[in-house]
């Protein structure tokens, strides 16, 4: 257990200002290895912005970010992803004109190091098929390996997206509202999936569905107006009157 005691991701004084408007201010976030960590808070609290800072889609105005003890404040998005931090998008992000297997293979093939080889045959990628199918099986898409992804229903696309993300064998996954826009049954599916993949992995997610948060998350950080309001387990956090007032309302 000693291994899971350390922090995989730490931010210090993380701040982002947009033209005089401070969206994130002085956030110190510490995410423990192999936990599911949720970021919640009112609309406009800065959750997505924090995400974008962590994945380098935005450059912080101030502050630092460390991943596995390494400073990644100035890294590029692709670099972060190669280091093992992968995000999923608020909307589903797949390659619609490719089959499900090809979708996953695109993620797998980077490791072969032949991605610039335009003179090599595609067949050299076939050796990745088994691994791709295995990943698809993990998210319940074994029947859809050869289906064009554009035609899949929404919930399946999200599942595929997670399979693709898993292909990168990320140490850490960032999920922005993974259940958004989903019906009840899909929410169930994704919740289970997240639990399944969280083994030996760290997950940071933004989620407004408190049901999902309460069943999945080990640790919760509440943001408000760009700053950390409080932190703790679901029970702790939901008992906090400030959180109730600013965020949960009657739901808590």
């Amino acid at each position, binding site marked *: 257990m000693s291994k899971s005691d350390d922090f995989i991701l730490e931010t210090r004084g993380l701040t982002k200002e947009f033209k005089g408007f401070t969206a994130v201010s002085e956030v110190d976030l510490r995410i423990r290895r192999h936990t599911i960590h949720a970021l919640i808070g009112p*609309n406009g609290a800065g*959750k997505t912005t924090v995400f974008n800072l962590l994945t380098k889609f935005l450059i912080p105005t101030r502050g630092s970010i460390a991943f596995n003890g390494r400073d990644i404040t100035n890294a590029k998005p692709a670099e972060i992803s190669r280091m093992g931090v992968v995000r999923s998008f608020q909307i589903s992000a797949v390659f619609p004109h490719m089959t499900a297997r090809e979708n996953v293979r695109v993620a797998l093939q980077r490791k072969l190091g032949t991605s610039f080889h335009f003179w090599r045959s595609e067949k050299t990628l076939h050796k990745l098929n088994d691994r791709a199918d295995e990943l698809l099986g993990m998210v319940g898409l074994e029947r859809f390996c050869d289906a064009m992804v554009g035609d899949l229903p929404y919930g399946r696309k999200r599942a595929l997206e997670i399979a693709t993300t898993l292909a990168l064998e990320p140490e850490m996954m960032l999920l922005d509202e993974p259940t958004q826009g989903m019906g009840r049954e899909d929410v169930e599916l994704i919740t289970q999936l997240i639990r399944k993949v969280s083994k030996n992995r760290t997950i940071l997610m933004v989620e407004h569905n408190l049901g999902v948060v309460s069943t999945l998350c080990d640790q919760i950080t509440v943001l408000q107006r760009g700053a950390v309001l409080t932190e703790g387990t679901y029970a702790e956090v939901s008992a906090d009157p400030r959180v109730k*007032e600013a965020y949960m309302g009657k739901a808590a």
Partner: protein
Amino acid sequence: MSDVIENHDIGGQHVSEHIEELRIQDLHAFYGESHALHGIDMKVYQGELVTLLGRNGSGRTTTLRSIMGLIGHRTGSIMLKGEEVIHATPHSIAHLGVGYCPEERGIFSRLSVEENLMLPPRVADGGMSVEELYEMFPNLAERRRSQGTRLSGGEQQMLAMARILRTGANILLLDEITEGLAPVIVDKLGEVLLELKTRGYTVVLVEQNFRFAAPLADRHFVMDHGKIVATIKADELESKQHIFDQYLSV
């Protein structure tokens, strides 16, 4: 399974004088070659709040878009306030007093928050004033000068809703308006909808969040595969639980 509801079936007290605001008959809609709606029949009365429930892809959004005239190819009949609009253009439909809040929010990135708010032309009297709206959604007031799409996801959702409340439209087609909103704001929206109902607004609500929709709605239409498979009145929720289980869960 009764698709067509006769007048005497209506139980809701809020329904004023049983004026038909919206009547849809045998509506079919197509995306290119794919057939999305397979003959929808429904009626909504003035002052009523109804929901469209169903799984992802069951055709709820398509129904709203069809009413708005946003689906290129559709057949059947859609009567709005007594007018046939199946062949009408979206802008003339809007001017019958219909407000539409799309699933994808549709905030314009090239307009500021305030411009977004002011954009839709007034289609009837009695819309809310900008002050009222800013009071309801303080986030928007704070960010009024910033670019529309720079808002957070939830703020955009607020803007999309506020935008049509300004226009005076009294038939509201609302698609997943609680999506991405913090629970406190969802509570507030619920209050707003109740208030609108008392003012005689007619609301068609597409919702995933059944907990939100249940206490507000007079009736629920359950959709599956492009059809309405069940109609459930507010007071039948418990007795017809099996229908929800059949069509809404796994």
